[in-house]
């Protein structure tokens, strides 16, 4: 599962995150709630191994992150963690289909064009496979980013502020999509947001900040 013990992250003198204890079982859906600046993104990056904690221990899917470094950590991340960044960050030079293929390719896994095609169809993007990111609406781009995050059937799915700037209906749809995709691959889902509308879809909530 996912466990954090006495984790602190400091930048210079400032402490951006202090978390005494957090545990989530495999397949649980958690909302990470807090105002901006409360360290939500930092927490997600720590779990993904994109940042190293200043103190404390992090274990994800049975792996102590302190025991991984360099290319091995990158490889582990690519295979274990799916991330939907706030700004999505699709690669603009590549098509939608290529953006999806990038996930298994860079993680060193066999490409699964059939899975990519099925995911696109599931998300209502079947006809957008050859499109470039700039030709997509925000909603479409977000669905592509979710599809990319789940391409490798991650054990942990992380989403950073997925509902900001969305109206109520879109907010609902996005959270539904994330939960459905997390369920489909049995992943532990962490959605970081300051959006209180998300509250009612989640039984488990981790509140950050004062």
């Amino acid at each position, binding site marked *: 599962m996912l466990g954090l013990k006495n984790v602190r992250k400091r930048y210079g003198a400032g402490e951006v995150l202090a978390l005494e204890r957090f545990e989530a079982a495999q397949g649980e859906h958690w909302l990470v709630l807090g105002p901006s600046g409360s360290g939500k993104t930092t927490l997600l990056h720590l779990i993904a191994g994109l940042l190293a904690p200043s103190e404390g221990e992090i274990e994800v899917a049975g792996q102590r992150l302190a025991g991984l470094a360099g290319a091995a950590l990158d490889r582990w991340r690519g295979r274990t963690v799916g991330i939907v960044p706030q700004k999505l960050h699709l690669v603009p030079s590549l098509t939608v289909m290529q953006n999806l293929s990038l996930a298994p390719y*860079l993680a*060193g896994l066999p490409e699964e064009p059939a899975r990519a095609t099925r995911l696109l169809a599931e998300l209502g993007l079947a006809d957008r496979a050859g499109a470039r990111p700039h030709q997509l609406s925000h909603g479409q781009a977000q669905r592509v980013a979710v599809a990319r995050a789940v391409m490798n059937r991650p054990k942990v799915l992380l989403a950073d502020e997925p509902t900001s700037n969305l109206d109520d209906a879109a907010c609902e749809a996005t959270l539904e999509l994330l939960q459905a995709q997390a369920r489909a691959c049995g992943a532990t889902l962490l959605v970081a947001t300051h959006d209180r509308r998300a509250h009612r879809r989640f039984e488990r909530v981790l509140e950050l900040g004062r």
Partner: protein
Amino acid sequence: MTLAGISFAYLRARPLAAALNVLLLALGVATVTVLLLASRQIESRMLRDAEGVDLVVGAKGSPMQLVLSAVFHIDVPAGNIPLEEARALAAHRAVKKAIPLALGDSFRGYRIVGTTHDYPAHYGARVAAGGLWEKPMQAVLGSEVARATGIGVGARLVGAHGMGGEDTGEAHEETPYEVVGVLAPTGTVLDRLVLTAVESVWEVHGTAGEPEEYQEITALLIRYASPLAAATMPRQVNANPALQAASPAYESARLFRMIGVGVEVLRAFGIVLMLAAGLSVFIALTHALEERRYDLAVMRMLGAARAKLFALLVLEGVLLAAAGAALGLALGHAATGAIGALMAAQHQGPLTGLLWLNEEWWVAGAALGVGLFAALVPGLRAMRAEVAHALAEG
């Protein structure tokens, strides 16, 4: 999906910048290639033309002009020498063989050379059709003359006064030659000459009936009996107020040295172009780093190791360089072929683009090296790029 595929996708996303970089590199490669092909071919052709000729004797004047006019048939001769002097020289015991040359006329821009059978024999020429001349006013065509003019054995040709340049004078209508033979290609200057007996040239110029002491030839190609002759012979010849001696080997070496400066300048120009292309690739990739900050971060997020990002950038530089090298080599060969066609139109020696020199591998390698080197620093920076912040902002 491959790393090369991703690199290519990036290049295709900015086609204009990529094309400019490729073109710049290609121009540098093409310049160096043309120089390589042209200088190598011209040099080897001049060496072949001058092979086995130890000394040229002609009228007093510049030794360079003498070699150019009598061996390479490029320049006009300074004048003629008395036949008797030439005969005396040919009989010298230090001379193994002496081939007389009588110049003065041309046929459609190709020189008519009065000589002996020793001249084609010297270059190992074979007769492709007909035979060699047996009496005056019979002519044998070099292979290129026959091909370019389209005439053959049995045809009649009329010489024009002059060497075939712009100063070509009136035609000798009343003294036509009969073509009795065509030579097979030799790859030497012979291919671009019309050969005949020395006496033909006298006949055409109306001196045939005069006593021998008034006859003249233009030059004498001499082969020494022993290398020792090189020490004394030129001095002896030059002591004669009517004669000039010149060594083809020495004069060609002098010529290469003079041309060499120009070739070096052009080669440096080509190398500067290639380096400029390298700088341009460097700038393009450095710029791309800024543009792709988020892409690189996302790739790390998706599991790419740092080394993979380095490889991605370097591959992009190498792809550009490979395209530049291929295009440059193709351009260089095409340009050499075009220059060759232009030279052929002026009856100058053959220059072909259909020749591959091993040195060209070095040129291609240098181009790839430029691309690789230009991509090195951007590649290292891509490797060190910070991920978490780039993902968080944006």
